[in-house]
């Protein structure tokens, strides 16, 4: 456990994972792979073939229909919610769309995980939120609710929220979609800074921006028809 009560993560692996929504066909079918710790994994493939679902399963947002997700060798699908919380706080997940609490202001949305888990003192939290809001030029909108701001800002705030918790693993579902070029650039700089500081070690992401993962020396993971087709350096 580190100072925040979060659990250090040494390994993440999926074993024979299958997942389908409701009674429908399987979106992931027999996925077995490990996540390269300390590296960037760029999950890619044809649209609608299970990349986002792969990230959801990886972040344990949905329970696999069969198979297991092993974090530090333990099958987390068999853990209770409470047992999983220390690991959960170390794996940040950013939503492709939605994910902000509509009856809370942007400030309250950013503050909720810290206040709920007593991660930071109120002063430190306030400073951190205002600093990041100023950096991304939305400090004037902090007290507004999600419905009162643009979809781009909603996306930015929902992406920044897990990052403020300083996770060591970040699972990002198309983090730059819907952001203006300047904000997207700044977000990339922030992620690179977090990696350089050593807090953020591993990133798994889907992104339409092929250049940036390449710049981070990302390892591509090609998913097609719910299966890992190949893994390694892009051709």
């Amino acid at each position: 456990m580190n100072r925040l009560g979060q659990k250090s993560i040494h390994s993440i692996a999926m074993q024979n994972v299958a997942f389908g929504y409701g009674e429908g066909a399987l979106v992931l079918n027999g996925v077995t792979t490990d996540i390269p710790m300390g590296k960037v994994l760029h999950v890619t493939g044809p649209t609608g073939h299970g990349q986002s679902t792969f990230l959801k399963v990886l972040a344990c947002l949905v329970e696999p229909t069969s198979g297991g997700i092993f974090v530090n060798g333990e099958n987390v699908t068999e853990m209770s919610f409470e047992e999983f919380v220390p690991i959960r706080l170390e794996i940040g997940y950013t939503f492709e769309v939605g994910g902000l609490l509509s009856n809370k202001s942007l400030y309250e949305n950013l503050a909720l995980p810290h206040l709920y888990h007593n991660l930071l003192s109120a002063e430190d939290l306030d400073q951190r939120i205002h600093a990041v809001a100023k950096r991304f030029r939305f400090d004037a909108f902090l007290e507004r609710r999600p419905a009162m701001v643009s979809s781009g800002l909603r996306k930015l705030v929902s992406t920044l929220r897990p990052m403020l918790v300083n996770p060591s693993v970040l699972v990002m579902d198309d983090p730059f979609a819907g952001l203006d070029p300047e904000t997207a650039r700044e977000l990339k700089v922030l992620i690179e800074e977090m990696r350089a500081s050593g807090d953020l070690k591993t990133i798994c992401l889907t992104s339409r921006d092929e250049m940036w993962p390449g710049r981070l020396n990302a390892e591509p993971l090609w998913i097609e028809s719910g299966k890992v087709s190949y893994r390694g350096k892009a051709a």
Partner: protein
Amino acid sequence: MEILLTQADRVGFRLFELWRYIRGTALMIYLAFRSAFNDRKLGFRQILSVVSAQIYFTGWQGMPLVTILALAAGGIAILQSSAQLSLLGGTSMLGNILVVIIVRELGPLITALVVIARSGTAVASELGNMRVNREIEALEVMGVHPLSYIVFPRLLGGVISVLCLSFYFNLISLVGGFVVSRAIHDLPFWFYVDSLATAFSMDDVVLFLLKNTFSGLIIFTVACQQGLSVQSSSHEVPQVTARAVVHAIVAVTSFNLLVTLLFYLNQLVRLGIL
């Protein structure tokens, strides 16, 4: 014979579904309280803020409507009963009639119906929309248990609100009853108070607590369960809201009827009639 078997199958299936529904509901209540207990050192302040918001919305904001209904119910009860009682010369029975009609029966039932109409629908649609907007998933990702952060505060706030609203309903009804009886019979205030005080018993307190606590629990459990049953599409939200209203009305009225029935059976046993 085949038709009979088909009918038996249908009844059996319905009963099985009902049992699954009740079991699921009871499990949700248990898990909500359990997770809130586990999280008591974590997000307690956050949970309390949701409890107070629920009390504000259900209890405080529901007061104007309850006031109107309570005044009307008290007035109507007195008007109807005094018309009959004056024929028999039994004005002193007013207290008994008000306690039986208002405190024991109408108070819990009308309050529950008001809460279903205002808050049950609101909670079911709010939770349904939260599901659609992936807010429930967002809570899970943050390590915030949806049952402790969403369901538990609504159950607790809902029960407190129903108890307070029902008490308020009774109080205002009795005031309404007094205003009408004063206008009709020129009844002295102390005579009215004395008549009520004589009519009240410990049983009424037990009945009040029992009916209102469980009505609140039923309404908000049904609303939460229906709201959280939304899968992913916004068109499900009005459907679950309507279902929450119907289920809550059926459950609350059945429960009230059952408690009243048991209460009077108990009275008969006490009197040695049964």
